[in-house]
Protein backbone atom coordinates (compact mmCIF):
# COMPACT_ATOMS: atom_id res chain seq x y z
CA UNK A 1 0.00 0.00 0.00
CA UNK A 2 2.46 2.59 -1.05
CA UNK A 3 -0.09 4.94 -2.61
CA UNK A 4 -1.45 6.74 0.44
CA UNK A 5 -3.54 9.48 -1.13
CA UNK A 6 -5.38 9.01 -4.35
CA UNK A 7 -7.46 11.86 -5.67
CA UNK A 8 -9.85 10.75 -8.36
CA UNK A 9 -11.45 13.35 -10.64
CA UNK A 10 -12.33 15.53 -7.70
CA UNK A 11 -14.61 18.48 -8.51
CA UNK A 12 -16.25 21.19 -6.48
CA UNK A 13 -18.67 23.86 -7.63
CA UNK A 14 -20.02 26.75 -5.63
CA UNK A 15 -23.18 27.69 -7.50
CA UNK A 16 -22.09 28.37 -11.07
CA UNK A 17 -18.47 28.74 -10.13
CA UNK A 18 -16.36 25.64 -10.62
CA UNK A 19 -13.54 25.94 -8.09
CA UNK A 20 -11.98 22.53 -8.66
CA UNK A 21 -12.40 20.72 -11.95
CA UNK A 22 -11.64 17.00 -12.17
CA UNK A 23 -8.39 17.09 -10.26
CA UNK A 24 -6.60 13.74 -10.09
CA UNK A 25 -3.31 13.04 -8.35
CA UNK A 26 -1.70 10.52 -6.08
CA UNK A 27 0.86 10.67 -3.31
CA UNK A 28 3.00 7.75 -2.15
CA UNK A 29 4.63 7.12 1.15
CA UNK A 30 7.91 9.01 1.26
CA UNK A 31 6.75 11.68 -1.15
CA UNK A 32 6.39 15.37 -0.37
CA UNK A 33 4.00 16.82 -2.88
CA UNK A 34 4.23 20.56 -3.44
CA UNK A 35 0.84 21.88 -4.41
CA UNK A 36 1.23 25.12 -6.35
CA UNK A 37 -1.04 27.50 -8.14
CA UNK A 38 -2.01 31.16 -8.26
CA UNK A 39 -4.32 32.49 -5.55
CA UNK A 40 -7.83 31.25 -6.19
CA UNK A 41 -6.66 28.31 -8.30
CA UNK A 42 -8.42 25.82 -6.03
CA UNK A 43 -5.55 24.59 -3.85
CA UNK A 44 -7.27 25.17 -0.55
CA UNK A 45 -10.61 23.81 -1.81
CA UNK A 46 -8.88 20.63 -2.99
CA UNK A 47 -7.12 20.16 0.32
CA UNK A 48 -10.35 20.81 2.20
CA UNK A 49 -12.04 18.07 0.21
CA UNK A 50 -9.25 15.55 0.78
CA UNK A 51 -9.32 16.26 4.49
CA UNK A 52 -13.08 15.75 4.68
CA UNK A 53 -14.04 19.34 5.50
CA UNK A 54 -15.91 19.99 2.25
CA UNK A 55 -17.81 17.32 0.39
CA UNK A 56 -16.97 17.11 -3.31
CA UNK A 57 -19.55 17.88 -5.99
CA UNK A 58 -18.24 14.85 -7.87
CA UNK A 59 -15.27 12.52 -7.77
CA UNK A 60 -13.62 11.36 -4.59
CA UNK A 61 -10.36 10.96 -2.72
CA UNK A 62 -9.04 7.84 -1.04
CA UNK A 63 -6.71 8.19 1.89
CA UNK A 64 -5.09 4.99 3.19
CA UNK A 65 -7.72 3.03 1.24
CA UNK A 66 -10.65 4.82 2.86
CA UNK A 67 -13.02 6.81 0.69
CA UNK A 68 -13.64 10.36 1.89
CA UNK A 69 -17.19 10.39 0.51
CA UNK A 70 -18.36 7.13 2.07
CA UNK A 71 -16.19 7.03 5.20
CA UNK A 72 -15.03 10.54 6.09
CA UNK A 73 -14.33 9.68 9.72
CA UNK A 74 -11.77 7.01 8.80
CA UNK A 75 -10.12 9.46 6.41
CA UNK A 76 -10.00 12.21 9.02
CA UNK A 77 -8.42 9.77 11.44
CA UNK A 78 -5.48 9.03 9.15
CA UNK A 79 -4.79 12.66 8.23
CA UNK A 80 -3.01 15.37 10.13
CA UNK A 81 -4.38 18.59 8.68
CA UNK A 82 -3.26 22.14 9.20
CA UNK A 83 -5.71 24.63 7.69
CA UNK A 84 -4.50 27.83 6.10
CA UNK A 85 -3.36 30.27 8.78
CA UNK A 86 -3.54 27.45 11.36
CA UNK A 87 -6.62 28.77 13.17
CA UNK A 88 -6.90 27.54 16.76
CA UNK A 89 -8.99 28.35 19.80
CA UNK A 90 -7.29 31.54 20.89
CA UNK A 91 -8.49 31.61 24.46
CA UNK A 92 -7.06 28.18 25.24
CA UNK A 93 -3.51 27.58 26.37
CA UNK A 94 -1.24 25.63 24.05
CA UNK A 95 -1.25 22.63 26.38
CA UNK A 96 -5.03 22.55 26.80
CA UNK A 97 -5.57 23.00 23.07
CA UNK A 98 -3.25 20.11 22.24
CA UNK A 99 -4.88 18.01 24.95
CA UNK A 100 -8.28 18.73 23.45
CA UNK A 101 -7.16 17.72 19.96
CA UNK A 102 -5.46 14.59 21.31
CA UNK A 103 -8.56 13.47 23.21
CA UNK A 104 -10.85 13.99 20.22
CA UNK A 105 -8.31 12.00 18.22
CA UNK A 106 -8.79 9.18 20.69
CA UNK A 107 -5.32 9.18 22.25
CA UNK A 108 -5.36 7.58 25.70
CA UNK A 109 -5.37 10.05 28.54
CA UNK A 110 -2.18 8.65 30.05
CA UNK A 111 -0.40 8.91 26.70
CA UNK A 112 -1.27 12.55 25.98
CA UNK A 113 1.38 14.25 28.17
CA UNK A 114 4.10 12.14 26.56
CA UNK A 115 2.98 13.09 23.04
CA UNK A 116 2.82 16.77 23.94
CA UNK A 117 6.28 16.56 25.48
CA UNK A 118 7.74 14.98 22.33
CA UNK A 119 6.13 17.56 20.05
CA UNK A 120 6.94 20.55 22.19
CA UNK A 121 10.53 19.39 22.21
CA UNK A 122 10.60 18.93 18.46
CA UNK A 123 8.78 22.17 17.67
CA UNK A 124 10.35 24.18 20.44
CA UNK A 125 7.08 24.92 22.22
CA UNK A 126 8.21 24.16 25.74
CA UNK A 127 8.32 27.76 26.90
CA UNK A 128 4.78 28.62 25.72
CA UNK A 129 2.81 25.51 26.70
CA UNK A 130 0.97 27.31 29.50
CA UNK A 131 0.32 30.52 27.58
CA UNK A 132 -2.97 31.37 25.85
CA UNK A 133 -2.63 30.96 22.10
CA UNK A 134 -3.89 34.50 21.44
CA UNK A 135 -0.74 36.10 22.88
CA UNK A 136 1.67 34.00 20.79
CA UNK A 137 3.61 35.28 17.80
CA UNK A 138 2.77 34.07 14.33
CA UNK A 139 5.68 31.66 14.33
CA UNK A 140 4.57 30.00 17.54
CA UNK A 141 0.96 29.84 16.38
CA UNK A 142 2.05 28.10 13.21
CA UNK A 143 4.08 25.61 15.20
CA UNK A 144 1.09 24.96 17.46
CA UNK A 145 -0.82 24.24 14.25
CA UNK A 146 1.89 21.81 13.21
CA UNK A 147 1.82 20.18 16.62
CA UNK A 148 -1.94 19.55 16.50
CA UNK A 149 -1.56 18.04 13.03
CA UNK A 150 1.16 15.67 14.24
CA UNK A 151 -0.17 14.71 17.64
CA UNK A 152 -1.66 11.39 16.48
CA UNK A 153 1.37 10.60 14.29
CA UNK A 154 -0.74 10.37 11.13
CA UNK A 155 0.42 8.49 8.01
CA UNK A 156 -0.76 11.40 5.84
CA UNK A 157 -0.01 15.04 6.45
CA UNK A 158 -1.76 17.91 4.66
CA UNK A 159 -0.41 21.38 5.37
CA UNK A 160 -1.96 24.46 3.80
CA UNK A 161 0.79 27.07 3.47
CA UNK A 162 2.83 25.90 6.46
CA UNK A 163 5.52 28.57 6.13
CA UNK A 164 3.37 31.54 5.16
CA UNK A 165 4.20 34.56 7.29
CA UNK A 166 7.20 33.00 9.02
CA UNK A 167 10.62 34.59 9.22
CA UNK A 168 13.51 32.87 7.39
CA UNK A 169 14.72 31.03 10.50
CA UNK A 170 11.28 29.70 11.27
CA UNK A 171 10.79 28.67 7.65
CA UNK A 172 14.05 26.78 7.82
CA UNK A 173 12.90 25.04 10.98
CA UNK A 174 9.53 24.01 9.54
CA UNK A 175 11.14 22.76 6.34
CA UNK A 176 13.63 20.71 8.33
CA UNK A 177 10.82 19.19 10.28
CA UNK A 178 8.94 18.27 7.12
CA UNK A 179 12.12 16.82 5.68
CA UNK A 180 12.71 14.70 8.76
CA UNK A 181 9.25 13.21 8.63
CA UNK A 182 9.12 12.74 4.88
CA UNK A 183 10.34 9.14 4.72
CA UNK A 184 7.62 7.89 7.05
CA UNK A 185 4.64 9.73 5.64
CA UNK A 186 2.86 10.98 2.58
CA UNK A 187 2.88 14.77 2.75
CA UNK A 188 1.03 17.41 0.75
CA UNK A 189 1.95 21.04 1.24
CA UNK A 190 0.62 24.04 -0.59
CA UNK A 191 2.85 27.01 -0.97
CA UNK A 192 3.62 30.16 -2.91
CA UNK A 193 7.31 29.98 -2.14
CA UNK A 194 9.00 28.23 -5.01
CA UNK A 195 12.37 27.87 -3.32
CA UNK A 196 10.53 25.72 -0.84
CA UNK A 197 9.47 23.39 -3.60
CA UNK A 198 13.08 22.96 -4.61
CA UNK A 199 14.15 22.54 -1.01
CA UNK A 200 11.71 19.90 0.24
CA UNK A 201 9.29 18.66 -2.39
CA UNK A 202 9.93 15.47 -4.28
CA UNK A 203 7.14 16.27 -6.69
CA UNK A 204 5.12 19.26 -7.76
CA UNK A 205 1.58 19.65 -8.96
CA UNK A 206 0.55 23.00 -10.40
CA UNK A 207 -3.11 23.81 -10.68
CA UNK A 208 -4.79 26.79 -12.28
CA UNK A 209 -8.48 27.58 -12.56
CA UNK A 210 -9.29 24.33 -10.85
CA UNK A 211 -7.37 22.04 -13.22
CA UNK A 212 -4.07 20.20 -12.97
CA UNK A 213 -1.67 21.99 -15.31
CA UNK A 214 1.54 20.16 -14.50
CA UNK A 215 2.63 17.18 -12.43
CA UNK A 216 6.29 16.28 -12.11
CA UNK A 217 9.59 17.00 -10.38
CA UNK A 218 10.98 20.52 -10.20
CA UNK A 219 13.31 19.62 -13.03
CA UNK A 220 10.44 18.45 -15.21
CA UNK A 221 8.91 21.88 -14.80
CA UNK A 222 12.12 23.72 -15.63
CA UNK A 223 12.49 21.65 -18.78
CA UNK A 224 9.30 23.21 -20.09
CA UNK A 225 10.99 26.59 -20.27
CA UNK A 226 12.39 27.66 -23.67
CA UNK A 227 15.43 28.95 -21.79
CA UNK A 228 16.13 25.62 -20.09
CA UNK A 229 19.96 25.24 -20.22
CA UNK A 230 20.32 28.84 -21.41
CA UNK A 231 23.68 30.58 -20.93
CA UNK A 232 24.36 34.24 -20.20
CA UNK A 233 27.48 36.10 -21.22
CA UNK A 234 28.34 39.49 -19.68
CA UNK A 235 30.66 41.77 -21.63
CA UNK A 236 31.39 45.47 -22.33
CA UNK A 237 28.60 47.11 -24.32
CA UNK A 238 31.07 48.19 -27.04
CA UNK A 239 31.74 44.57 -27.93
CA UNK A 240 28.18 43.39 -27.54
CA UNK A 241 26.88 43.84 -31.09
CA UNK A 242 29.75 41.91 -32.72
CA UNK A 243 29.63 39.17 -30.12
CA UNK A 244 25.86 38.79 -30.55
CA UNK A 245 26.27 38.30 -34.29
CA UNK A 246 28.97 35.67 -33.79
CA UNK A 247 27.06 33.76 -31.11
CA UNK A 248 23.83 33.82 -33.05
CA UNK A 249 25.61 31.79 -35.78
CA UNK A 250 26.27 28.87 -33.41
CA UNK A 251 24.24 25.83 -34.53
CA UNK A 252 22.73 25.13 -31.08
CA UNK A 253 21.70 28.69 -30.28
CA UNK A 254 18.06 29.46 -30.91
CA UNK A 255 18.01 33.13 -29.93
CA UNK A 256 20.09 35.86 -28.28
CA UNK A 257 18.56 38.43 -25.95
CA UNK A 258 20.47 41.61 -25.12
CA UNK A 259 20.01 43.32 -21.78
CA UNK A 260 21.95 46.51 -20.91
CA UNK A 261 23.58 46.41 -17.47
CA UNK A 262 25.10 49.23 -15.39
CA UNK A 263 28.71 50.38 -15.96
CA UNK A 264 28.48 50.06 -19.74
CA UNK A 265 28.09 46.34 -19.72
CA UNK A 266 25.62 44.14 -21.54
CA UNK A 267 24.26 40.70 -20.87
CA UNK A 268 23.68 38.37 -23.80
CA UNK A 269 21.36 35.53 -22.94
CA UNK A 270 21.52 32.60 -25.32
CA UNK A 271 18.65 30.12 -25.43
CA UNK A 272 19.29 26.65 -26.84
CA UNK A 273 17.58 24.79 -29.64
CA UNK A 274 15.64 21.77 -28.30
CA UNK A 275 17.01 22.23 -24.82
CA UNK A 276 20.57 21.02 -25.61
CA UNK A 277 23.39 21.86 -23.21
CA UNK A 278 25.02 25.06 -24.50
CA UNK A 279 27.70 25.92 -21.99
CA UNK A 280 30.63 24.09 -23.61
CA UNK A 281 29.90 25.35 -27.10
CA UNK A 282 29.54 28.94 -25.93
CA UNK A 283 32.73 28.69 -23.88
CA UNK A 284 34.68 27.55 -26.89
CA UNK A 285 33.18 30.19 -29.16
CA UNK A 286 34.00 32.93 -26.68
CA UNK A 287 37.62 31.83 -26.49
CA UNK A 288 37.96 31.20 -30.23
CA UNK A 289 36.56 34.62 -31.17
CA UNK A 290 38.36 36.41 -28.34
CA UNK A 291 35.12 37.89 -27.05
CA UNK A 292 36.00 40.02 -23.97
CA UNK A 293 33.48 38.30 -21.66
CA UNK A 294 33.72 39.04 -17.95
CA UNK A 295 31.21 36.34 -16.91
CA UNK A 296 29.75 33.21 -18.46
CA UNK A 297 27.16 31.31 -16.50
CA UNK A 298 24.21 28.91 -16.72
CA UNK A 299 21.00 30.93 -16.70
CA UNK A 300 18.35 28.32 -17.29
CA UNK A 301 15.38 30.10 -15.86
CA UNK A 302 13.87 29.59 -12.45
CA UNK A 303 10.87 27.78 -11.09
CA UNK A 304 9.19 31.15 -10.87
CA UNK A 305 9.50 31.42 -14.65
CA UNK A 306 8.21 27.88 -15.13
CA UNK A 307 5.32 28.65 -12.77
CA UNK A 308 4.44 31.77 -14.74
CA UNK A 309 4.72 29.96 -18.04
CA UNK A 310 2.50 27.12 -16.88
CA UNK A 311 -0.13 29.17 -15.10
CA UNK A 312 -0.46 32.04 -17.56
CA UNK A 313 0.32 29.97 -20.64
CA UNK A 314 2.43 32.79 -21.98
CA UNK A 315 6.00 32.11 -23.05
CA UNK A 316 6.77 35.83 -23.05
CA UNK A 317 5.96 36.06 -19.42
CA UNK A 318 8.68 33.55 -18.75
CA UNK A 319 11.49 35.51 -20.37
CA UNK A 320 13.74 37.16 -17.81
CA UNK A 321 12.69 40.75 -17.46
CA UNK A 322 15.61 42.25 -15.58
Amino acid at each position, binding site marked *: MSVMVEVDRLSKSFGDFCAVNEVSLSVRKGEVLGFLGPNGAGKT*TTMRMISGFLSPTSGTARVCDNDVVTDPIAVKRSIGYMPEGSPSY*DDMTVASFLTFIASVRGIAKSEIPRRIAILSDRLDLGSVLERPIEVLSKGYKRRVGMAQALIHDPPVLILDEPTDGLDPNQKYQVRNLIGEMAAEKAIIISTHVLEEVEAICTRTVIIGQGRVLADGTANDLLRRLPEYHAVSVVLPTLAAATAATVLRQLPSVAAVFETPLPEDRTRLRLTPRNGVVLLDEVNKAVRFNAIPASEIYLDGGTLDDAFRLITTGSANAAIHAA
Partner: protein
Amino acid sequence: MSQIRIIARRELTAYFTTPLAFVFIAIFVALTGAFTFYIGHFFDRNQASLDTFFQYLPWLYLMLVPAVAMRLWAEERKSGTIEQLLTLPITTTDAVLGKFLAAWLFCGIALAMTFPLWLTVNVLGSPDNGVILIGYVGAFLMAGAFLSIGICMSALTRNQIIAFIAGAVVCFLFTLSGLDLVLNFFRPWAPLALIDVIASMSFLTRFEALSRGVIELRDLVFFLSLMAFWLFATVMAVDARKAA
Protein backbone atom coordinates in the same frame (compact mmCIF):
# COMPACT_ATOMS: atom_id res chain seq x y z
CA MET B 1 -20.69 9.74 22.63
CA SER B 2 -17.25 10.34 24.09
CA GLN B 3 -16.55 12.81 21.26
CA ILE B 4 -19.65 14.79 22.24
CA ARG B 5 -18.47 14.86 25.84
CA ILE B 6 -14.99 16.08 24.91
CA ILE B 7 -16.40 18.86 22.75
CA ALA B 8 -18.94 19.84 25.40
CA ARG B 9 -16.23 20.02 28.02
CA ARG B 10 -14.09 22.26 25.85
CA GLU B 11 -17.01 24.58 25.11
CA LEU B 12 -18.04 24.81 28.73
CA THR B 13 -14.47 25.62 29.74
CA ALA B 14 -14.41 28.25 27.00
CA TYR B 15 -17.33 30.07 28.70
CA PHE B 16 -15.41 30.21 31.94
CA THR B 17 -11.95 31.14 30.62
CA THR B 18 -13.28 34.58 29.73
CA PRO B 19 -15.13 36.87 32.14
CA LEU B 20 -18.22 36.30 29.96
CA ALA B 21 -19.56 33.50 32.14
CA PHE B 22 -19.28 35.46 35.36
CA VAL B 23 -20.71 38.63 33.86
CA PHE B 24 -23.59 36.66 32.40
CA ILE B 25 -24.39 34.82 35.60
CA ALA B 26 -24.15 38.03 37.66
CA ILE B 27 -26.51 39.87 35.33
CA PHE B 28 -28.89 36.94 35.17
CA VAL B 29 -29.10 36.57 38.92
CA ALA B 30 -29.37 40.33 39.49
CA LEU B 31 -32.17 40.67 36.95
CA THR B 32 -34.15 37.70 38.23
CA GLY B 33 -33.92 39.31 41.66
CA ALA B 34 -35.04 42.68 40.35
CA PHE B 35 -37.98 41.19 38.46
CA THR B 36 -39.08 39.00 41.32
CA PHE B 37 -38.84 41.53 44.12
CA TYR B 38 -39.52 44.93 42.58
CA ILE B 39 -41.47 44.48 39.40
CA GLY B 40 -43.21 41.34 40.63
CA HIS B 41 -43.97 42.82 44.07
CA PHE B 42 -42.87 39.64 45.76
CA PHE B 43 -43.36 40.93 49.30
CA ASP B 44 -46.74 42.61 48.71
CA ARG B 45 -48.21 39.38 47.43
CA ASN B 46 -47.66 37.67 50.74
CA GLN B 47 -47.43 34.27 49.08
CA ALA B 48 -44.76 31.65 49.65
CA SER B 49 -44.19 30.81 46.00
CA LEU B 50 -41.81 31.65 43.18
CA ASP B 51 -44.63 32.59 40.80
CA THR B 52 -43.27 36.06 40.17
CA PHE B 53 -39.82 34.64 39.44
CA PHE B 54 -41.12 32.16 36.87
CA GLN B 55 -43.53 34.70 35.42
CA TYR B 56 -40.74 37.00 34.24
CA LEU B 57 -38.20 34.31 33.41
CA PRO B 58 -39.26 33.83 29.74
CA TRP B 59 -38.74 37.54 29.07
CA LEU B 60 -35.33 37.46 30.64
CA TYR B 61 -34.41 34.37 28.62
CA LEU B 62 -35.49 36.17 25.50
CA MET B 63 -32.61 38.60 25.97
CA LEU B 64 -30.00 36.44 27.62
CA VAL B 65 -30.20 32.98 26.06
CA PRO B 66 -29.55 34.12 22.48
CA ALA B 67 -26.48 35.86 23.93
CA VAL B 68 -25.20 32.52 25.21
CA ALA B 69 -25.88 30.84 21.86
CA MET B 70 -24.64 33.53 19.48
CA ARG B 71 -20.96 32.65 19.61
CA LEU B 72 -21.31 28.90 19.26
CA TRP B 73 -20.94 28.69 15.47
CA ALA B 74 -20.55 32.28 14.31
CA GLU B 75 -17.25 32.55 16.14
CA GLU B 76 -15.97 29.25 14.74
CA ARG B 77 -16.77 30.45 11.26
CA LYS B 78 -15.29 33.90 11.75
CA SER B 79 -11.99 32.69 13.21
CA GLY B 80 -11.70 29.74 10.85
CA THR B 81 -11.52 27.19 13.66
CA ILE B 82 -14.54 25.47 12.13
CA GLU B 83 -12.10 23.97 9.63
CA GLN B 84 -9.93 22.72 12.44
CA LEU B 85 -12.91 21.30 14.33
CA LEU B 86 -14.61 19.54 11.44
CA THR B 87 -11.43 17.89 10.14
CA LEU B 88 -11.13 16.07 13.44
CA PRO B 89 -12.63 12.58 13.37
CA ILE B 90 -16.10 13.68 14.46
CA THR B 91 -19.42 14.14 12.71
CA THR B 92 -21.17 17.49 12.41
CA THR B 93 -23.86 16.08 14.72
CA ASP B 94 -21.23 15.37 17.40
CA ALA B 95 -20.04 18.96 17.17
CA VAL B 96 -23.55 20.46 17.25
CA LEU B 97 -24.66 18.32 20.19
CA GLY B 98 -21.44 18.95 22.11
CA LYS B 99 -21.80 22.69 21.75
CA PHE B 100 -25.49 22.63 22.55
CA LEU B 101 -25.03 20.53 25.68
CA ALA B 102 -22.27 22.83 26.92
CA ALA B 103 -24.47 25.90 26.44
CA TRP B 104 -27.45 24.17 28.03
CA LEU B 105 -25.39 23.12 31.01
CA PHE B 106 -24.14 26.68 31.28
CA CYS B 107 -27.74 27.96 31.37
CA GLY B 108 -28.46 25.32 33.98
CA ILE B 109 -25.61 26.62 36.12
CA ALA B 110 -26.95 30.16 35.80
CA LEU B 111 -30.41 28.94 36.73
CA ALA B 112 -29.06 27.08 39.74
CA MET B 113 -27.42 30.30 40.89
CA THR B 114 -30.89 31.71 41.60
CA PHE B 115 -31.13 29.36 44.62
CA PRO B 116 -31.16 32.31 47.08
CA LEU B 117 -34.69 33.04 45.88
CA TRP B 118 -35.71 29.54 46.78
CA LEU B 119 -34.01 29.90 50.16
CA THR B 120 -35.86 33.17 50.72
CA VAL B 121 -39.33 31.74 50.18
CA ASN B 122 -38.47 28.78 52.36
CA VAL B 123 -37.32 31.04 55.16
CA LEU B 124 -40.35 33.31 54.92
CA GLY B 125 -43.01 30.65 54.52
CA SER B 126 -43.59 27.07 53.56
CA PRO B 127 -43.96 26.89 49.79
CA ASP B 128 -44.78 23.75 47.84
CA ASN B 129 -41.25 22.73 46.89
CA GLY B 130 -42.55 20.16 44.43
CA VAL B 131 -44.16 22.94 42.43
CA ILE B 132 -40.94 24.94 42.55
CA LEU B 133 -38.90 21.96 41.38
CA ILE B 134 -41.21 21.39 38.41
CA GLY B 135 -40.97 25.10 37.68
CA TYR B 136 -37.20 24.84 37.56
CA VAL B 137 -37.38 21.79 35.30
CA GLY B 138 -39.68 23.76 33.02
CA ALA B 139 -37.33 26.71 33.05
CA PHE B 140 -34.40 24.47 32.14
CA LEU B 141 -36.37 22.94 29.26
CA MET B 142 -37.36 26.35 28.02
CA ALA B 143 -33.74 27.50 28.14
CA GLY B 144 -32.85 24.47 25.99
CA ALA B 145 -35.56 25.36 23.47
CA PHE B 146 -34.37 28.98 23.26
CA LEU B 147 -30.79 27.76 22.91
CA SER B 148 -31.58 25.37 20.10
CA ILE B 149 -33.08 28.29 18.17
CA GLY B 150 -30.10 30.49 19.00
CA ILE B 151 -27.48 27.91 17.96
CA CYS B 152 -29.25 27.46 14.63
CA MET B 153 -29.17 31.21 13.97
CA SER B 154 -25.51 31.20 14.96
CA ALA B 155 -24.81 28.52 12.37
CA LEU B 156 -26.31 30.70 9.65
CA THR B 157 -23.95 33.66 9.99
CA ARG B 158 -20.40 34.54 10.87
CA ASN B 159 -21.56 37.69 12.59
CA GLN B 160 -22.36 37.23 16.26
CA ILE B 161 -24.55 40.34 16.45
CA ILE B 162 -26.74 39.12 13.62
CA ALA B 163 -26.88 35.70 15.26
CA PHE B 164 -28.03 37.35 18.49
CA ILE B 165 -30.72 39.51 16.93
CA ALA B 166 -32.06 36.76 14.68
CA GLY B 167 -32.09 34.38 17.63
CA ALA B 168 -33.93 36.85 19.83
CA VAL B 169 -36.53 37.59 17.14
CA VAL B 170 -37.34 33.93 16.46
CA CYS B 171 -37.47 33.21 20.20
CA PHE B 172 -39.78 36.21 20.60
CA LEU B 173 -42.20 34.82 18.01
CA PHE B 174 -42.25 31.44 19.72
CA THR B 175 -42.78 33.03 23.10
CA LEU B 176 -45.69 35.16 22.00
CA SER B 177 -47.47 32.85 19.62
CA GLY B 178 -50.09 31.92 22.24
CA LEU B 179 -51.05 35.50 23.06
CA ASP B 180 -54.03 37.30 21.60
CA LEU B 181 -51.61 39.88 20.23
CA VAL B 182 -50.42 37.31 17.72
CA LEU B 183 -53.51 35.15 17.42
CA ASN B 184 -55.85 38.07 16.62
CA PHE B 185 -53.79 38.63 13.53
CA PHE B 186 -54.68 35.14 12.28
CA ARG B 187 -58.22 34.74 13.63
CA PRO B 188 -60.19 36.63 10.97
CA TRP B 189 -58.94 34.50 8.11
CA ALA B 190 -56.95 31.44 9.16
CA PRO B 191 -58.62 28.05 9.69
CA LEU B 192 -59.11 27.06 13.28
CA ALA B 193 -56.66 24.19 12.97
CA LEU B 194 -53.82 26.53 11.99
CA ILE B 195 -54.64 28.88 14.84
CA ASP B 196 -54.50 25.94 17.22
CA VAL B 197 -51.11 24.94 15.85
CA ILE B 198 -49.75 28.45 16.26
CA ALA B 199 -51.17 28.74 19.73
CA SER B 200 -49.71 25.37 20.69
CA MET B 201 -46.21 26.56 19.75
CA SER B 202 -46.25 29.12 22.50
CA PHE B 203 -43.49 28.82 25.06
CA LEU B 204 -45.45 31.02 27.44
CA THR B 205 -48.50 28.78 27.54
CA ARG B 206 -46.41 25.64 27.96
CA PHE B 207 -44.17 27.11 30.55
CA GLU B 208 -47.03 28.63 32.55
CA ALA B 209 -48.46 25.18 33.14
CA LEU B 210 -45.09 23.82 34.24
CA SER B 211 -44.39 26.74 36.53
CA ARG B 212 -47.69 26.15 38.28
CA GLY B 213 -46.50 22.63 39.00
CA VAL B 214 -48.55 20.89 36.32
CA ILE B 215 -46.25 18.48 34.56
CA GLU B 216 -47.72 16.98 31.45
CA LEU B 217 -46.08 14.60 29.05
CA ARG B 218 -47.10 16.59 26.00
CA ASP B 219 -45.37 19.71 27.30
CA LEU B 220 -42.16 17.76 27.83
CA VAL B 221 -42.50 16.21 24.39
CA PHE B 222 -43.13 19.66 22.95
CA PHE B 223 -39.92 21.16 24.34
CA LEU B 224 -37.79 18.12 23.55
CA SER B 225 -39.04 17.74 19.98
CA LEU B 226 -38.64 21.45 19.40
CA MET B 227 -34.99 21.16 20.46
CA ALA B 228 -34.52 18.10 18.25
CA PHE B 229 -35.97 19.97 15.29
CA TRP B 230 -33.79 23.06 15.70
CA LEU B 231 -30.66 21.02 16.36
CA PHE B 232 -31.31 19.00 13.22
CA ALA B 233 -31.70 22.29 11.33
CA THR B 234 -28.39 23.42 12.85
CA VAL B 235 -26.58 20.33 11.55
CA MET B 236 -28.02 21.05 8.10
CA ALA B 237 -27.00 24.70 8.30
CA VAL B 238 -23.44 23.93 9.40
CA ASP B 239 -22.99 21.35 6.64
CA ALA B 240 -24.45 23.59 3.98
CA ARG B 241 -22.55 26.72 4.89
CA LYS B 242 -19.19 25.41 6.08
CA ALA B 243 -17.13 27.11 3.45
CA ALA B 244 -19.09 30.36 3.33
